[in-house]
């Protein structure tokens, strides 16, 4: 072993002292010859005779030297280097070809590298916390019988978490956290910032150290203890100018003093579900207040003990929860526990989309490689002589294949290098156009994985382009120097057709996938949400507990602000709700009995608390009856339902005047409102109830204002009105309805954009391929056509024949591609909207488009047939 390594090192060293070594060897052989001569001359031979015999005995020095050189160096490396130099010279004489290959491969490889780098950063890079592969998310599965379907649910109180923390043996730690928003800046300019509430073990569990100070102590996490806060780095920089003295001081937040105990490190990012990137403040979880206190949403993460598997942990927590006898408040009636790997939980949902991207981009690379392979095949006819000569001079077949692969490698190289730039450009474009559509996109970087992937692309392309031509050429022609054919052989035709069919099939798959996604995007964008698509300003106000402690105060504030907003000049109508459509994606779940319906059980129904004019503001038409008015806001005895509700519970009979039981209270349905899209634009409406805001007031108030002009321009007026009521309140989530709608379709637009880009490139490459192969075939058969024309064939007949023959391959490709495309369509199903995965129109039109493009690609070169001059062809013979 040591001897081998030594030998390898010596050989490596030898690479740099070739000349000296050659000289050494020459001298050694010369001295050998001299000594042999001496010996022969001692035996009495003449000098001439001795010289002759010595030379004879030694043999030809060249093979000896070659054998020695092979031993001294790396024969494969030497020959590769030789091939590399030869290839450089070879391609230098064919600049156009190199240009075509470079453009094709730069685009194809660039796309692949760009897609791979997103996959690398999202799926392959682990979360940058220590031992992050052991981090898990713990969820409840709500199996309450009243729930229509089993849903994931988070914890509604911390007692269950504490019980788990005490009893479990499979986790090295568990922590809970909740996302929140806080109003900061008690002066003239209050603003709402993202904050987080955490249990004390949250930061240690993630393995984070504070930049300054410390994290929460368990004592501080008990109710009634000192109020403490940790500053996010960004907020600390922005609000306090990075002043280190702020540590241990008290700052006032929402009217209460908090002591700053720590400052987060600058590079901290919360890689946990539910927390946004820019958390300004961290509080102990006991600081839950306001409307969150009524229905806390506590996420639970944990870290598996080393050597513990996820199912073990899940089984244990499940068993523990069965024995839980503590506070069941706000926990589902019946639930199961599920443990998910954190990384998978955060990013697993992106896998299908990214795989579609990678699949399509690799198909494009394949199409491009086939084009280049065809070019190389076409070149072969011209190179038969050269290669046959080399074979005759003793080059082995494997050596010739090696040389041709090296040629392809050299051909691929510039494209691959340029591909890095294309990839960088594509990623840049993606980040600029769709900054929020992929997670961790800001972490995209040129990693080692990307480098290996690029190398993989280069090798794949070289082999894809070169192996078949090399194999074919060396098989057909090496043996026979004189067998040089200038007309296409049968097998040449067949392989050409085969690869054309493959290209068409691949292009069909990409084009149909792109069409499905683009049409889904269009469908979604055209979807009628059931309300106005523009002219509405939306925003949110949160009432602090200190100055607005009771539901009555919330209702009063809501009433006040609604009236003030409605009186702003230029405002048609204004409304208040507890849940803005498409923004806040949760409706109140209220248990209601519907006595006059077939459903006797209590029903859990999504309920939206709204002010009067909510329907006017959003432009939602009434189907029957009337909407809630000022009178209803006082009596709280009326509700409005949506069409789905009316259909489900009352069928064909009118729901107007029917009673609903909210616990003991009975309320009358006074109107039916049109169904709207609530949480997601693509989700159909479910049964819903509209109830006066005062009946379910909350401290979180969404406001909406309808105006003729530009709604965003009303923001200062809204602020001014808010200040009139309470100068300590801040507007947050300021947006407009068209922006909210646009946010909904962004992800769809992103997919459609990427696939559209892929499809364009795929079609272009396939078209170039079809054109190139046909043009080449026509040129090769020039002679044949000339002779046939001389014998009286009509140009039209020949043209017909070329067209018919040429279309065979694309047609076969389409036929073979359709099942593949259908399969891909099925895979895309979850990303489609308003279109079936097997939509016949899509597949038919895509096939027709591809065949039309193929026809065009064939038609252009085919016309050359009609211009053949038989006399010229014959003369050339």
């Amino acid at each position, binding site marked *: 072993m040591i*001897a*081998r390594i*030594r*030998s390898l090192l*010596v*050989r490596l060293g030898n690479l740099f002292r070739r000349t000296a070594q050659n000289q*050494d*060897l020459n*001298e*050694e*052989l010369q*001295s*050998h010859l*001299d*000594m*042999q001569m*001496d*010996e022969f001359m001692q035996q009495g031979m003449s000098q001439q005779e001795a010289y002759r015999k010595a030379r004879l005995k*030694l*043999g030809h020095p060249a*093979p*000896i030297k070659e*054998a*020695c050189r*092979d*031993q*001294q160096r790396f024969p494969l490396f030497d020959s590769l280097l030789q091939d590399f130099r030869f290839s450089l010279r070879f391609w230098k004489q064919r600049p156009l070809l190199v240009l075509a290959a470079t453009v094709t491969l730069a685009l194809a490889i660039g796309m692949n590298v760009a897609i791979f780098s997103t996959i690398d950063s999202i799926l392959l890079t682990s979360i940058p916390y220590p031992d992050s592969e052991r981090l898990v998310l713990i969820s409840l599965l709500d199996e309450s019988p009243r729930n229509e379907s089993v849903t994931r649910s988070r914890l509604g109180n911390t007692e269950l978490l504490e019980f788990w923390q005490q009893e479990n043996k499979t986790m090295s730690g568990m922590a809970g956290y909740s996302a929140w928003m806080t109003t900061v800046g008690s002066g003239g300019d209050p603003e709402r910032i993202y904050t987080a509430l955490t249990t004390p073990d949250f930061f240690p569990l993630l393995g984070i150290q504070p930049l300054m100070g410390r994290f929460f102590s368990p004592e501080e996490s008990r109710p009634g203890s000192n109020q403490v806060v940790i500053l996010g780095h960004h907020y600390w920089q922005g609000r306090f100018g990075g002043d280190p003295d702020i540590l241990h001081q008290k700052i006032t937040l929402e009217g209460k003093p908090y002591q700053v105990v720590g400052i987060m490190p600058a590079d901290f990012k919360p890689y946990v579900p539910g927390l946004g990137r820019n958390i300004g403040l961290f509080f102990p979880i006991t600081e839950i207040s306001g409307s969150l206190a009524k229905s806390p949403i506590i996420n639970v993460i944990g870290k598996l003990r080393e050597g513990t598997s996820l199912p073990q942990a899940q089984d244990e927590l499940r068993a523990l929860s069965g024995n839980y006898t503590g506070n069941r408040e706000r926990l589902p009636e019946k639930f199961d526990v599920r443990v998910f790997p954190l990384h998978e939980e955060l990013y697993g949902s992106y896998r299908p989309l990214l795989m579609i991207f990678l699949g399509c981009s690799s198909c494009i690379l394949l199409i491009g490689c086939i084009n280049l392979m065809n070019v190389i095949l076409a070149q072969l006819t011209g190179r038969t002589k050269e290669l046959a000569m080399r074979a005759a001079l003793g080059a082995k077949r494997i050596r010739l294949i090696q040389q041709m692969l090296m040629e392809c490698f050299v051909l691929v190289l510039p494209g691959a290098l340029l591909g890095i730039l294309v990839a960088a450009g594509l990623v840049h474009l993606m980040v600029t156009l769709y900054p929020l559509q992929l997670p961790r996109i800001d972490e995209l970087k040129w990693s080692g994985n990307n480098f290996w992937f690029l190398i993989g692309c280069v090798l794949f392309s070289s082999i894809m382009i070169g192996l078949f031509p090399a194999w074919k050429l060396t098989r057909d022609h090496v043996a026979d120097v004189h067998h040089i054919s200038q007309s296409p052989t049968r097998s040449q035709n067949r392989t050409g057709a085969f690869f054309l069919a493959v290209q068409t099939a691949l292009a069909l798959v990409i084009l149909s996938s792109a069409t499905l996604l683009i049409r889904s995007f269009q469908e979604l964008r055209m979807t009628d949400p059931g309300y106005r698509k523009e002219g509405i300003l939306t925003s949110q106000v949160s009432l602090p507990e200190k100055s607005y402690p009771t539901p009555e105060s919330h209702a009063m504030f809501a009433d006040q602000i609604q009236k003030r907003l409605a009186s702003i000049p230029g405002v048609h109508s204004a409304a208040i709700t507890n849940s803005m459509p498409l923004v806040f994606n949760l409706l109140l779940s209220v248990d209601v009995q519907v006595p006059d319906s077939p459903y006797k059980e209590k029903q859990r129904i999504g309920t939206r608390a709204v002010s009067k004019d909510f329907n006017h503001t959003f432009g939602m038409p009434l189907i029957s009856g009337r909407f809630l008015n000022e009178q209803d806001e006082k009596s709280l005895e009326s509700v409005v339902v949506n069409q789905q509700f009316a259909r489900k519970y009352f069928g064909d009979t009118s729901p107007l005047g029917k009673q609903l039981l909210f616990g003991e209270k009975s309320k009358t349905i006074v109107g039916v409102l049109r169904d709207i899209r609530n949480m997601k634009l693509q989700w159909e409406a479910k049964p819903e109830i509209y109830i006066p805001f005062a009946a379910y007031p909350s401290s979180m108030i969404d406001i909406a204002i309808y105006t003729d002009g530009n709604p965003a321009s009303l923001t200062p007026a809204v602020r001014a009105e808010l200040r009139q009521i309470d100068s300590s309140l801040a507007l947050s989530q300021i947006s407009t309805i068209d922006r909210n709608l646009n946010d909904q379709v962004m992800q769809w637009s992103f997919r459609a954009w990427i696939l559209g880009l892929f499809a364009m490139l795929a079609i272009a490459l396939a078209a170039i391929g079809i054109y190139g192969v046909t043009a080449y075939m026509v040129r090769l058969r020039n002679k044949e056509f000339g002779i046939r024309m001389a014998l009286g064939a009509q140009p039209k007949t020949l043209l017909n024949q070329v067209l018919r023959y040429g279309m065979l391959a694309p047609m076969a490709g389409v036929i073979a591609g359709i099942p593949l495309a259908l399969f891909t369509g099925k895979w895309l199903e979850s990303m489609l909207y308003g279109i079936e995965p097997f939509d016949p129109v899509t597949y038919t039109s895509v096939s027709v488009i591809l065949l039309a493009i193929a026809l065009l690609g064939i038609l252009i070169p085919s016309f050359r047939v009609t211009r053949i001059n038989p006399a010229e062809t014959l003369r050339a013979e």
Partner: protein
Amino acid sequence: MGKEIWQGTLALMVLQTLKVMGSLHGYGIARRIEQISNEQLLVQYGTLYPTLIKLEQEGLIHSEWGVSDNNRRAKFYTITEAGIRKLQKSMKDWELTTEVVASFFRLKEKE
């Protein structure tokens, strides 16, 4: 004509020759092997010189330019410590192999 030698066996012969003879040049090694085998073996120079290079790369022999008996400049090879160890080990292996093969052949004759 003499028989040709496998490269592996040739390496052993070279090492043994150098161990016995001390320092020797390529030509000398070849002649020596041929003489010992009564000209039965024919050393291929296309194999000998690469073998010498290989042995030197592996650190089993060492080379130096010097002057021969009849005043010729020549490259002299000597065996190293590692070479002697390697030779001893290889000789043991060789003996074992030949013994096994020989006993195998004897077995055949009895039947």
